[in-house]
């Protein structure tokens, strides 16, 4: 079996206030795999994401694209781990969408022509071709979310990690994202509560609760386990619940 592109081993983190957020998280993701990370509020999903990028210093072993995460390697790790944050307003900080998408490639030190090429490509990939000159403030929530995705795509990371990508999106925006995500060739880590979306996009689901992994398996199996989901503050995805009603 090939070496996993993301490997977490006994990852632990305690907030400065003393509360334990991660109590030994262990799982790994193979290249090309699409994994959903679900769990109730406060399960530690977002904290785990921050830990993977080295924004909170967790204990345990974290390896991203062959780089063992330490203070010294955090920059390399972030180059391969494309984080898309929950609030797109945090992600889009430049005055123009084009500049924002160019931010990553430019800081990577790429040549101007290459940067331009990547910006065009990334915006086209999320259906925002020709929006370089628009101001982030004037984008709709859905457009902002897709622009935020483009800012990370332009860096061509090995893993794409999205935190609650469908939050606050209308059904059309959500549908667009669901159709978009599988087309992106990266390894995908999808964090959130939108179990229907995860069922459609991800082949595998990891369930977290109280800072631990409580289930890990094929989405069709994990997300159909009503008892497991309900024990951890979740519900059957609507698509599966409807199927059960019919049965």
């Amino acid at each position, binding site marked *: 079996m090939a070496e996993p592109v993301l490997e977490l081993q006994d990852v632990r983190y305690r907030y400065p206030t003393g509360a334990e957020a991660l109590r030994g998280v262990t799982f790994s993701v193979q290249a090309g795999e699409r994994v959903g990370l679900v769990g109730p509020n406060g399960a530690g999903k977002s904290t785990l994401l*921050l830990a993977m*990028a080295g924004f909170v210093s967790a204990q345990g072993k974290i390896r991203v694209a062959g780089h063992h995460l330490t203070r010294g390697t955090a*920059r390399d790790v972030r180059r391969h781990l494309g*984080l898309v944050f929950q*609030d797109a307003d945090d992600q889009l*900080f430049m*005055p123009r969408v084009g*500049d924002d998408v160019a931010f990553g490639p430019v800081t990577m030190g790429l040549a101007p022509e290459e940067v331009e090429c990547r910006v065009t490509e990334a915006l086209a990939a999320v259906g925002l071709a020709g929006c370089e000159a628009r101001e982030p403030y004037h984008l709709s929530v859905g457009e902002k979310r897709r622009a935020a995705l483009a*800012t990370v795509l332009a*860096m061509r990371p090995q893993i794409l990690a999205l935190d609650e990508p469908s939050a606050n999106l209308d059904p059309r925006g959500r549908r667009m994202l669901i159709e978009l995500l599988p087309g992106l060739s990266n390894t995908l880590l999808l964090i959130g509560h939108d179990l229907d979306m995860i069922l459609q996009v991800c082949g595998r689901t990891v369930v977290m609760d109280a800072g631990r992994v409580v289930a890990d398996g094929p989405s069709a199996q994990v997300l159909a386990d009503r008892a497991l989901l309900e024990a951890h503050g979740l519900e059957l995805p609507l698509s599966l619940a409807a199927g059960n009603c019919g049965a």
Partner: protein
Amino acid sequence: MHHRMLDHFAGGETAVHRLDPAAKTVALLAAVLATVLVGRDRFLPLLPTAVALAAYHALARAPVWYVAKRLLVVSPFAAAIIVLFPFLEPGRPVWTLALGTWTIEVTAEGLLRAGHLAAKFLLCAWATVLLLATTRFQDVLQALERLRVPRVFVVQLAFLYRYLWVLLDEGMRLRMARAARDGGAGPWRVRFQSSVGVVGVLFLRTYDRAERIYWAMTARGFDGTLHGTTRQHMHRKDWVFVVAVCAAGVAVVVWDRAFYG
């Protein structure tokens, strides 16, 4: 929520809109210098600048109300100082008010000084508003960078402009949430306390957001330096414009100095 942006009319297609942003920024600086360097109490040397700005304004086809409203918004800062001059400047009294042992005098010299300051302020503010009415803010930022303004200032301005509206939206949402519960009424003490709460929450949220933005930046390789891409270039017409404005500015200052000493 939607706010009318500072550079609402900057998307126009007139000749002055098409001028290079750096040329316009230098011209603005020249106009401001030609205004502030005019000696005290002299109005005539301000006239060429006023005429030039009026011509620019007409060419830009910016609505008068738009500019007037923006001038009104910024004027309180200057007005707070200007209104003191008629009382503080010694000279020939034109109006006296006796309050017991205190007398307040408005002097002719003071009025003249206040009028002169107001005129200078209005010209400078008008020039700035016109720059923003004909140039997109992001282009002004890029122009500042090309003019070698320290990067840290440009970046600060860029962030301020980017997040000012987001913050305003957040503030408005908090105020609406309060109004939805107190109906805009209630004892002033409670309202005051809740206002303090709103400001406090806004501060905390801003702090959190700043941290999240920093994460988003470092996640994409930010190492303390911001690299930009420049798309602006000076053409012949831009050079003609900026040289003409600077020459006119120098001429005004020389005229002011030569004739009035």
